[in-house]
């Protein structure tokens, strides 16, 4: 029996070992070739530290805003049955399957130099205002690709929520704010934690969106890409990738431990 199980797992283990574990081990050892200090450049060099802190702040803000908005959508779609509801949910979660580059392009289409927003502000006499290439554009794009995942998670949880509790609270005269705090929050909190960790990790590692927007606001994946491609600074790029990977992995692990389940791994 055990031999059969081992045979079942062996091909996957071989692929995983050859194309992830071994290459990753090589990546992890590479910075050592340029001295041990190379492992800590993300903390010791102000430029990289700034990039890390900026990316972390952006990802945290995007996660919080997306969770709050998606919870509202989830509460609405999870408790109401109306025609077209399934279609609406399908459309709202459609961007889950988009590569990040599409999201960047959509922001350019709306907020870029030829964008509809510029047309609108021009018609209003304010000149052609763009927001695609700065922090605003990046933030909106990140929220755009974060919302669908959170909406899917929240709607699924709310659908399984017992309406009795809320009815009882209301009959007893609880205010809307109290229902939100005492009924909704405990029910949604585990999902918020699990989904929040995934949103944060995804935002930290997102590359395609920032790449398309060619943003003035440099996120860490872009820094890594530049070091690797433009400056052929392999050891440095490897060190920064390790730092980014460790951070996202640690956040997912922490959420999983706090949540006491494997929910956090449902990326």
């Amino acid at each position: 029996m055990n031999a059969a199980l081992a045979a079942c797992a062996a091909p996957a283990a071989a692929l995983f070992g050859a194309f992830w574990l071994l290459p990753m081990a090589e990546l992890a050892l590479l910075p050592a070739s340029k001295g041990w200090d190379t492992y800590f450049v993300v903390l010791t060099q102000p430029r990289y530290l700034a990039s890390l802190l900026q990316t972390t702040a952006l990802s945290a803000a995007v996660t919080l805003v997306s969770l709050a908005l998606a919870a509202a959508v989830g509460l609405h779609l999870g408790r109401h049955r109306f025609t077209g509801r399934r279609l609406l949910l399908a459309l709202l979660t459609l961007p889950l399957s988009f590569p990040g580059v599409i999201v960047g392009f959509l922001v350019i289409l709306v907020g870029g130099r030829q964008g509809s927003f510029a047309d609108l502000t021009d018609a209003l006499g304010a000149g052609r205002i763009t927001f695609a290439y700065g922090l605003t554009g990046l933030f909106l794009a990140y929220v755009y690709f974060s919302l669908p995942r959170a909406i899917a998670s929240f709607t699924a949880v709310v659908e399984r929520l017992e309406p009795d509790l809320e009815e009882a609270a209301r009959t007893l005269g609880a205010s809307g704010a109290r229902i939100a705090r005492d009924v909704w929050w405990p029910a949604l909190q585990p999902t918020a934690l699990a989904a929040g960790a995934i949103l944060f990790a995804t935002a930290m590692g997102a590359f395609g969106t920032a790449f398309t927007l060619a943003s003035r606001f440099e996120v860490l994946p872009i820094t890594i890409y530049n070091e690797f491609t433009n400056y052929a600074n392999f050891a440095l790029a490897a060190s920064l990738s390790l730092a980014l990977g460790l951070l996202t992995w640690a956040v997912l692990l922490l959420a999983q431990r706090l949540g006491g389940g494997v929910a956090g791994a449902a990326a």
Partner: protein
Amino acid sequence: MAAAPPGSRPGAGVLAWATGAIAIFTLAPLALSVTAGLMANYAQGLRAGLTTRWLGEVWALYGSTVALSLALALGCVAIALLVGVPCGYALARSRSRAARAFEELLTLPVAVPGLATALALILAYGQWRAFRQSPWFILAGHVVFTLPFMVRTVGAAFRREDLVALDEAARTLGAGFVRRFVGVLVPAVAPSIVAGCLMVFTLSIGEFNLTWMLHTPLTRTLPVGLADSYASMRLEIGSAYTLIFLLVIAPVLWAMQAAAHWMENRDALTRPGH
């Protein structure tokens, strides 16, 4: 808010407005992109008329990227079926510490940003030029990224108690391992396998973070072509190309929804006590 019907829940109006606003936030740019891809001239708007000219140009310029992406996605699905499904079974049945450790390790390519995985692959295999320049190199990256999803989805299905009992019953009746696996277990988790396949397919076809680093001028995938067109072509071409991407994934997403629905109904029917 005033439109909330009597007896509705407090706050329901706010939630409905928020849902509406987010639907517009999500769908308006998409609608804009689809129409821009069909417009004769984006700057002049609809007055200039509609055309399929840009779709034709995209097809001529980037048609090969669609074919390569489909081939890679199908390759990922095939490997997920042949390698991922048995692995999911092994991890579901094994109680060894090695199995738990492997399960934890398998989540890493998903948790770690694709850029890091791509750099690692280039460092390890970049000198093998024939491999580096072939689509197999991209396939390797896509497989380590998508395989965990199949393993996890079917693993969860194989862990269901009724299936453990079924497995046990088939074994007591003397069915050999291969017969049990192919004849009894795989059909029992078929909906999860289908869901896993569709997930693997969509993940592979939309993958950019890894692929941008792994591609060469001769191995461009759909998202790589998209990035290229956004950077160097007119807005109409980028939009038409985006429309083609939507047309490629739409049937798969529809199938995903149908599969999820099927699983729900099937589970509701087979679950005891319902």
